[in-house]
């Protein structure tokens, strides 16, 4: 701080006026009489950034909260807090407050649709009208679980959502029906079967396990077509890009991110470096492999003594998983992969898909 001397004193306010038009507007008044060193502005911006800080000094805060909300929270272990227990008179005072407690505020409009459901809710990629009618999702994994719930006649509803909402980072997930005892926690896809105790056929045998690997080339071909083939760009937009945002710049960014993720996923499944870029992917190989896989599936289905895979009486998780991909190929990729599905095994796979759709009540 330097004393203000010199001739300029004859001009009032010349010095201590530091009115900033931008950011924080601040006047250094005569009372403080500070000159402004260079670091000052940096410090100023710091204080703009942190505008609050709180400490929690009352250990019984949790108890207060339980008293205020209808939902019960697990009781706290009191032992570790014993030393910090508040003196009795203060505790008595605290217990008197709040003096008045009103009923809770109503939740915003967007919530009301999502809350207070007596049914478990499956969050999937879909559109609002399709969700209302519980029509098939356009995402293979979402469609698999949606199909399973329908096949097992589990009462549920579906809602459109995005990967950001999911606890695992990808859809689908299930939100259990509202119960008064505890706030419902989301169930990731891998635990849906256990959670709902779905009446599924017995777990797959070792032989059947090997068929799971056939899903990889099918998945690769589906990803490759939808995300990396320019001819399906419009489909990709309709599925994943347009519902997210109307901004073309954000759409471009999202599309780029999705495409990179799809390429990385395909490369990873082929034990190549995921950052290799889509140039590393051999398109011919992708489509040869999917045909082989589909032929193997068709062969298995032809050998089955029932209409479902592995001679089961009822379709199970594997059937739903296959249906998830094949149905979308048939419906949306009629000229490409859909054509292959129709051709192999004399159309046995297409008939299989129609049976599943029928079982699910999708009259399509």
């Amino acid at each position, binding site marked *: 701080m330097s004393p203000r001397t010199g001739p300029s004193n004859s001009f009032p306010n010349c010095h201590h006026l*530091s009115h900033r038009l*931008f950011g924080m*507007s601040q006047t250094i008044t005569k*009372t403080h009489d500070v000159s402004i060193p260079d670091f000052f502005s*940096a*410090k100023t911006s710091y204080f703009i950034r942190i505008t609050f800080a*709180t400490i929690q000094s009352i250990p019984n805060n949790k108890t207060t909260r339980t008293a205020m909300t209808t939902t019960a929270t697990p009781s706290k272990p009191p032992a570790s807090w014993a030393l910090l227990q508040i003196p009795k008179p203060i505790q008595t005072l605290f217990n008197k407050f709040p003096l008045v407690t*009103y009923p809770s505020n109503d939740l*915003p409009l967007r919530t009301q649709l999502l809350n207070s459901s007596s049914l478990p809710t499956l969050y999937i990629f879909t559109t609002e009208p399709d969700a209302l009618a519980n029509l098939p999702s356009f995402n293979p994994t979402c469609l698999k679980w949606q199909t399973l719930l329908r096949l097992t006649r589990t009462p549920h509803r579906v809602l459109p959502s995005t990967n950001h909402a999911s606890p695992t980072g990808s859809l689908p997930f299930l939100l259990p029906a509202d119960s008064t005892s505890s706030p419902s926690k*989301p169930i990731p896809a891998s635990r849906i079967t256990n959670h709902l105790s779905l009446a599924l056929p017995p777990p797959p045998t070792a032989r059947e396990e090997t068929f799971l690997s056939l899903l990889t080339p099918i998945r690769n071909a589906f990803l490759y077509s939808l995300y990396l083939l320019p001819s399906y760009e419009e489909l990709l937009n309709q599925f994943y890009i347009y519902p997210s945002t109307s901004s073309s710049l954000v759409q471009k960014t999202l599309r780029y991110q999705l495409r990179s993720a799809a390429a990385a996923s395909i490369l990873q499944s082929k034990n190549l470096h995921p950052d290799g870029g889509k140039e590393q992917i051999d398109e011919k190989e992708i489509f040869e492999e999917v045909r082989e896989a589909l032929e193997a599936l068709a062969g298995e289905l032809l050998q089955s003594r029932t209409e479902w895979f592995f001679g089961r009486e009822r379709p199970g998780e594997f059937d739903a998983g296959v249906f998830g991909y094949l149905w979308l190929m048939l419906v949306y990729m009629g000229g490409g992969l859909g054509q292959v599905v129709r051709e192999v095994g004399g159309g046995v796979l297409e008939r299989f898909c129609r049976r599943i759709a029928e079982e699910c009540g999708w009259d399509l």
Partner: protein
Amino acid sequence: MANFLGTEAPTALDGANTTSNPPAHHHKAYKASTHMLDEHYLTPASIASIEVHGATNTRRSLLNHIFNPLVESSSPGSPSTLGDVLGRLSVATRKLSRFDIFKEDAFNVFISEAKRTESVLPTNQTELNISISVKEKSRLVVSAGTDFGNVEGSAYTNALFRNIFGGAETLSVNASTGTRTRSAYNATFTTPVNGNPDLRVALDLLRSTTQKPWASHEEHLTGGNLRFSWLGNAKNETHTLTYSSIWRQLTDLYPTASPTVRADAGDSLKSSLTHTFTRDRRDNPMLPQSGYLLRSVSELAGWGPLNGDVSFAKTELETSGAVPVPIPGVKGNTGISLGAGLRFGLLYPLPLGYALTGPATPSRINDRFQLGGPTDVRGFKLGGLGPHDNYDSVGGDVFAAGSVNMLLPLPRTDTDSPLRLHLFANGGRLVALQNQNKSSEEKAFLKMGSNQVFHSVKSAVGELGNGLPSIAAGVGLVYAHPVARFELNFSLPVVLRKGEEGRKGLQVGVGIKFL
């Protein structure tokens, strides 16, 4: 160099001949000028020359904007007095200092009487040579540091490029990382318009990741703002008009996130136009004891050509004031003051596009208001008021909040000490729009007709007055540092709604804006 007036004054404006310390003869001149000030304030005077020393990196055109009007109004032959000249000079130097490119404590103005040249006809006017010496602030300031608070610790680096093109343009680049604001990058380019330090335009690019524990999620922001700022006509008034386009991504939900937060997860682009008006006539913003503050923020998002994914009109009004309390028998400032503050906010959903009557989408969590916290409605947790879904504060579309407080000097301190005792009571209501039309079909589609929006907003505003507001009261210590205010309060909630999160006991607040 052709000087402003073409006299024989030494040239310095082009920066070739800059001096950081004024030469000795200026001191003599100063003595002469003070003498002159006393005796000849009303004598006719004009400006013979103006020199600016030390503005090495500043463009001549910028200085012209400041000094040309001064020179034109005080040129030889004009009917100006010494008082006029000094007044105008004071205005001009203040303007110069507002560019924020010169060191505040190195401003010096020297005035001397110009030598009469033979060719000029003798007049009774005193001609003045004016010499202004300035020191430019360093053009590049790089700083780094750590910030801490009780719930946030962060480290930052900041680079400030001042006066980049010589026209008082500033570029500030900032990067920080912390526990709550996990990362933030920000670049702001600011320039005065037409050489006027009071009219500025700024372009701001930002990218940040912030944790929002009160609503169990993280928000990623990427976008930009274009901002015009100008001073109002009256004293201490500022206006800001901002166009902003920001991609918000609500992601990384906590496992306990409520369905409300899950429903709003994902991407949205907000394209909006915001006008902010501030009239700050408080004696001290950190410790107001007299005067008042008026602030209004009006935002229009998504409607008409703005586009984007969200559409609404949002307005927020804030006023606060303080009066000193006199004590009979005590002369002068007692150090006791009474203050009050009032805030009100409203979000009105609009249809996207140009229609006024089409279906509108209800608000999202990142557009709704949050209320409560140590610098807001004290005695509540951050976002402690309003609708709560489980433990998530999901915000509301309409709010009103108010506070009364009394500042008292502590015993054995000066009446102007920055440390005070304060008593306060504050409260508020935060209400979300409700569906007036209970038909399940419309609910399912998450759209509201314009009639329905109107009735919902009307009844939400009515709901503000339903029962007492949620209130907390307490007592605390206030420390007003010139850059921020610190509070340590003990408070108890008096009126609450179920689900709202009050805080019993101690609470610390640090900030520059308090209710």
